[in-house]
């Protein structure tokens, strides 16, 4: 069964939908604070952004009904939708937006994602009551895409004025639902916003949502989660495992909603910042020696397509280069020979002046689903034949951060979800190599190529769409041809729904589900 649900019947008003998330429970329901995917998932139900994206990746109006960019691209004016008000009654106006930008940029808030996305925004002005202007230091071609993300959603200024605890417990937005209660470690209860008036253009209907309420639960254990869906205790689950998806496809009581996340594809980043991967030949050898295709077919059982791109297939500008990534052990061996890794040791691993050809691969158990980890194991196995010793070390998130911070890795796989190709700049611009004081940095493959830097910086500023596309295409080709990354598949994002759930869809922005149009049979 697939997500195309029969629209024939009339929507039923009322009912409570139970959602079981496999992600960690957010510590704050306000996605401004920190800013991770779990927050995005739930906040999509009660918060809305200035703009959104349609299925074709085009930016469409949401809370902002229109916008204009100044000639120099340093000022953007957004005209806000009329008579929209937050669920606490505060009207949506320029001041409100200003308050949100300020909130995001305030270090006290501790925003990460939103903070970085607004890096170029230096100030805001209220042009009129319902027109707000963002002032930029440089042109930012990614501004709209950034603003479409849930992490930059607009909240009630009155609510933001409260203490962070209060705001974290129950953020107030303009969404179709509002936060009723949150019992830590148990569930979040969302109830319908009856005065809802601001659906995005691509919504199926207008007016309030059909559902009375949504119960948002957290079931980290995937088996239990699926069991709960089967037994009908929950209506929707996320982070579905491949095998369960296959089962679901067969069953007629569960439907599957596949919504790959935008931004970067799921890939293995090869650390060109240190041996052995500072040698392009070795990088290519590794990539050629890894049998990803078979692994993906066996592990994901057709639920995920192999990716040959740096970007998610959700990105229109994604460049795909199958030719670079096919499995070819012979070629790999030759490459290693020519790279000087000629001998093999007792373990069958390549050796060069006493050094074994070892690839340290820290795996964050929080961020890589089991299927992915199995995939790595298979890569480990196939790469061994060519003589690579891949050392997989699963670790918890903070240890993982530490390992990265100390540049103690040769390969790593980290998701990066961001709307639009600008993610390339974050991932491959040499600025991304210098670790922040926290030790965190985004350019894990440590690509340090002036040419690429130049392309990305320019692309980040040009406003002409075609120009931008061309620049990003070049940049991607350079990255791929440099064998800096081994693309695996789109960042997986599968939802399974009971067949009684109709009209649920994922927002094309960051593929978080929205239950505005949803109703229960």
């Amino acid at each position, binding site marked *: 069964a697939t997500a195309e649900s029969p629209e024939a019947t009339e929507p039923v008003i009322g009912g409570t939908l139970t959602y079981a998330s496999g992600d960690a429970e957010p510590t704050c329901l306000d996605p401004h604070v920190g800013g991770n995917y779990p927050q995005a998932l739930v906040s999509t139900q009660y918060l809305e952004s200035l703009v959104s994206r349609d299925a074709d990746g085009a930016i469409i109006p949401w809370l902002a009904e229109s916008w204009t960019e100044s000639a120099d691209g340093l000022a953007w004016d957004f005209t806000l939708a009329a008579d929209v008000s937050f669920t606490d009654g505060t009207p949506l106006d320029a001041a409100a937006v200003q308050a949100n930008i300020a909130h995001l940029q305030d270090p006290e808030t501790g925003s*990460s994602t939103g903070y970085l996305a607004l890096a170029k925004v230096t100030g805001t002005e209220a042009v009129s009551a319902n027109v707000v202007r963002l002032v930029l230091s440089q042109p930012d071609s990614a501004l709209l895409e950034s603003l479409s993300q849930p992490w930059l959603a607009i909240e009630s200024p009155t609510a933001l004025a409260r203490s962070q605890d209060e705001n974290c417990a129950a953020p107030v937005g303009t969404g179709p639902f509002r936060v009723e209660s949150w019992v830590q*470690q148990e569930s979040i209860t969302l109830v319908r916003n009856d005065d809802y008036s601001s659906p995005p253009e691509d919504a199926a209907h207008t007016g309030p949502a059909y559902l009375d309420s949504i119960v948002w639960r957290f079931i980290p254990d995937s088996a239990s*989660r699926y069991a709960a869906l089967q037994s009908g205790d929950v209506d929707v689950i996320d982070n579905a495992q491949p095998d369960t998806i296959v089962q679901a496809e067969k069953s007629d009581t569960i439907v599957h909603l596949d919504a790959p996340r935008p931004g970067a594809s799921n890939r293995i980043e090869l650390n060109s910042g240190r041996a052995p991967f500072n040698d392009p030949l070795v990088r290519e050898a590794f990539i050629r020696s890894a049998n990803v295709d078979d692994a993906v077919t066996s592990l994901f059982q057709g639920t995920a397509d192999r990716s040959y791109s740096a970007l998610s297939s959700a990105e229109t500008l994604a460049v795909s280069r199958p030719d670079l990534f096919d499995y070819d052990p012979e070629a790999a061996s030759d490459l290693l020979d020519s790279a000087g890794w000629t001998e093999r040791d007792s373990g069958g691993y390549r050796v060069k002046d006493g050094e074994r050809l070892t690839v340290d691969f820290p795996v964050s158990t929080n961020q890589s689903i089991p299927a992915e980890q199995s995939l790595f194991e298979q890569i480990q196995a196939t790469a061994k034949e060519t003589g690579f010793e891949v050392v997989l070390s699963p670790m918890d998130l903070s240890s993982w951060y530490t390992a990265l911070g100390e540049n103690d890795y040769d390969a790593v796989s980290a998701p990066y979800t961001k709307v639009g190709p600008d993610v390339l700049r974050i991932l491959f611009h040499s600025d991304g190599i210098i670790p922040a004081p926290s030790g965190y940095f985004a350019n894990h493959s440590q690509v340090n190529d002036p040419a690429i830097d130049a392309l990305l910086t320019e692309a980040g500023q040009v406003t002409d769409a075609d120009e931008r596309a061309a620049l990003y295409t070049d940049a991607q080709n350079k990255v791929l041809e440099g064998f800096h990354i081994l693309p695996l598949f789109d960042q997986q994002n599968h939802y399974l729904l009971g067949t009684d759930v109709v009209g649920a869809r994922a927002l094309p922005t960051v593929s978080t589900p929205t239950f505005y149009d949803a109703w229960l049979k």
Partner: protein
Amino acid sequence: MAEVGRGTRIVRGSRAVQVVLARLGGAVFVLWMVATLTFFAIRLIPGDPAEAILGGPGSQTSPEALAAVRAEYGLDQPVLVQYLGQLARLATGDLGRSYSLNQDVAPLLVGQLGGTLLLAVLALGVAWLLALGLATWSTRGGRLAWYLGSGLEIVAAALPHFWLATALIVLFSVWLGWLPPISTSGVSGLVLPVLTLAVPLAGFLGQIMRESLLTALESPFVLSARARGESERGVRWMHVIRHASLPAISLSGWAFGSLLSGAVVVETIFARPGLGRTLLNAVTVRDVPVVVGAVLIVAVGYILMTLLTDLAQRIADPRLRAG
């Protein structure tokens, strides 16, 4: 057969006070040590708590945020200062503020406690019933019953929680569809977690109960009860059961501890809110205040439990009261 009860009441009274005081002192000491050990243990863990505080899947921490966090949680101060601060706060019953859940620990844990206690208490009860039932049944039926009984007990005792849990879910939820695997509301949701915790414990308890049951069954007072015309059931309910229970009672303190260990796994698998799950999360994100708090609560629970056990024993066994 030393004559009993010659000791003068007064002496006994003051003695009791001494005992209680000693107990209290011991308890406080244990708590302090636990707090200290935990605090420094966590400190030894490599990595930066500030990271942990902001850390969360997919989050990218900005230097500013980190700086702010360090200041807020006093992570920039020397460890000793932090330790003393922690103790001082603990002394006042303030468990501090969670790194990862940004809320106060005390209320958080107290909130979580309920679920775990419910689980633990129910499991303990069920385990007791299972164990008693099995022990009595297998000591009255013939050899076969005996082998079966003791076999079952050993197997049960060897079952790892996580495996049992999975098996139960697959059996009762997926195949039979009788019980919901996950539901924090309602009794039906409790069945599987409680069973998961109870069965292995029942195995252990059963093994001891069987032994003491036999001892009791062979003892002269049972013979003389029979000689009075007491029926098998009478013998068991009037005499043997209580004797069989004594050693098991003395174990309840230990059992409680093991249940809490089990709760870590069970609450994760069955997605139940509770101390165990919170603890595991806290440990993995190095949320020092929560871990210390949780461990302290567990320690308190353990101490209370041992006290209760002693009490229960004294109630169940007058010989102890006689001293």
